[in-house]
């Protein structure tokens, strides 16, 4: 965990220094060309002339204090910029995960119980199509149908009032959920099939329990454990997808901030965002690991 955090921060530090031209060159030309002396003074002030190891230590110490530098575009702290956008990305991803569960669980379970039937084949075909579809294009199609033709939902931006906010959240979150729906449905199905063939399920049936109770009480809870693994493992790809989908729908989250900052060449914001994305992934994996001990007693006793 700690080596990982150090590794991640070192990589973002490396990214900052790999970018051609330092921060001063970027400030220069923003409003007017700075003279050589002015540039040198700024470099001295921010310690950009110090040896790399010194800069590295300073970067790490600042990060530990929560200081991620200053945005060149807005002149406000990167921390502030990110804290403005982060909640929107979190809301979007959580809504999408809930949607994935609502869609994938029933379909996956029914496919497993009706294995080999038309329902099963149909569901699995849709899952494969879902995996093969570019999510951002799916978003554009939803926009076309529900925004432009039917005019039911807003296509771009974020609503101000709670109701408008909820309405503007629908299309982006449905689009984002597509990234995982096909995948998770497949996992639910195969995990359910595996559990259904186990001895204890057969025992439960043999002692005369109804199929419904065996499926719901005995098979399902155990079949869900791999699903949690998969969703937490795929959380990173969900965040990655959010970057593109926020751009499609003009959703003012962290991903949109990242991409726009690249075009503004506001690299302190870019690396700050990249770092926050990585921390989110590390945090989710940690929480999942802890959650396991509550969900699955077998892990606790190991």
């Amino acid at each position, binding site marked *: 965990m700690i*080596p*990982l955090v150090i*590794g*991640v921060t*070192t*990589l973002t530090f490396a*990214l900052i220094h*790999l*970018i051609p031209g330092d921060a001063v060159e970027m400030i220069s030309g923003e409003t007017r060309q700075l003279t050589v002396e002015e540039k040198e003074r700024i470099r001295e002030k921010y310690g950009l002339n110090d040896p790399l190891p010194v800069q590295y230590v300073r970067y790490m110490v600042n990060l530990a204090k929560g200081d991620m530098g200053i945005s060149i575009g807005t002149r406000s702290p990167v921390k502030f910029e990110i804290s403005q956008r982060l909640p929107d990305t979190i809301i979007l991803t959580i809504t999408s995960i809930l949607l994935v569960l609502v869609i994938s669980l029933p379909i996956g379970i029914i496919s497993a119980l009706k294995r080999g039937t038309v329902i099963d084949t149909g569901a699995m075909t849709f899952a*494969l*199509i879902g*995996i*093969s*579809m*570019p*999510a*951002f*294009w*799916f978003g*554009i*199609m939803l*926009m*076309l149908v529900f925004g*432009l033709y039917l005019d039911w939902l807003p296509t771009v931006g974020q609503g101000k009032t709670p109701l408008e906010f909820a309405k503007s959240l629908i299309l982006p979150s449905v689009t984002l959920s597509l990234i995982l729906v096909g995948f998770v449905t497949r996992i639910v199905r195969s995990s359910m099939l595996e559990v259904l063939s186990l001895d204890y399920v057969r025992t439960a049936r043999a002692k005369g329990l109804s199929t419904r109770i065996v499926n719901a009480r005995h098979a399902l809870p155990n079949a869900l454990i791999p699903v949690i693994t998969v969703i937490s493992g795929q959380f*990173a*790809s*969900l*965040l*990655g*997808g959010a*970057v*593109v989908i926020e*751009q*499609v729908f003009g959703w003012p989250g962290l*991903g949109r901030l*990242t*991409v726009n900052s*690249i*075009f503004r060449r506001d*690299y302190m914001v*870019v*690396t700050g*965002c*990249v770092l926050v*994305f*990585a921390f989110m*992934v*590390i945090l989710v994996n940690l929480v999942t690991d802890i959650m396991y001990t509550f969900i699955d007693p077998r892990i606790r006793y190991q």
Partner: protein
Amino acid sequence: MAEHVAELIPEAEIAEKIKPKSFTSMAWRSLSTNKQAILGSIVLSILVFAAIFAGQLTPYEPYTTNYSNVKQLPSAQHLIGTDELGRDGFTRLLYGTRISLTIGVLVALCTMSIGVPLGAIAGYLGGVVDMVIMRVVDVLMAFPFLVLAIAMVAVVGPSLVNMVFALVMVSWIWYTRLVRSIVLSLRETEYIVAAQALGASQASIIFRHILPNVIPVVVVQVSFHVAEAILIAAALSYLGLGAQPPTAEWGAMLSNAKELMRILPMLSIAPGVAIMITVLAINFIGDALRDALDPTLRN
């Protein structure tokens, strides 16, 4: 009774049935009887054909602007209409096949040639080398793949070539992890230990005993990676971080078509369908390859 059976089944056929089959011939049989594989291969062949003969299949040029012919609705002359610069959408779609297929294959092959040796070295040598490689893998894994790719593009600057470079730099870890885990598990198997005990050289163990087990898994991984890379490349180009205008790339075309969505929805629909068909065809082949090459899945 025994005579009866002998009469019913000709001897040659019995011999045929009990004859041991080679791995490749069994894999080929599994592939050639797989409906998805056949469908996928046919579709992919058509796409490759379209990519190669794009210039012959259409009378228009993908990059020539024609201001007397802008924003034409779909018709017999312009199957999906023309964009705001009067370029034929279908022509650009055909040329896009070229770019997407090339990028997919290029990214997958380059990534493979970096990731596989690293994984083999980590798994086979173990120790410090393994630790260093796997630490780097762990760090890269902590980033959302697309975010890291975007950050790499930010470093090297947005362009088609840089995007390929960025994708390779962030996706080799998948091959490394995969190959390392296979090599690690093989190293402990009895037949490798036996080969070592018999005095087989390092090279002979690597090339004769380990490599044949790694190749099928990597082939499957590459086929899925081609599909994945096409999707990712389209997404990055859509964001403006990959192929730059006026390149006829599907993702970039979708980004361009967004402005015209109200009047020319076909320009937004068609590139996405093209991506989907391509990726689906390759995924079909990948699924079939996995079934054919993984002996544990075969009946």
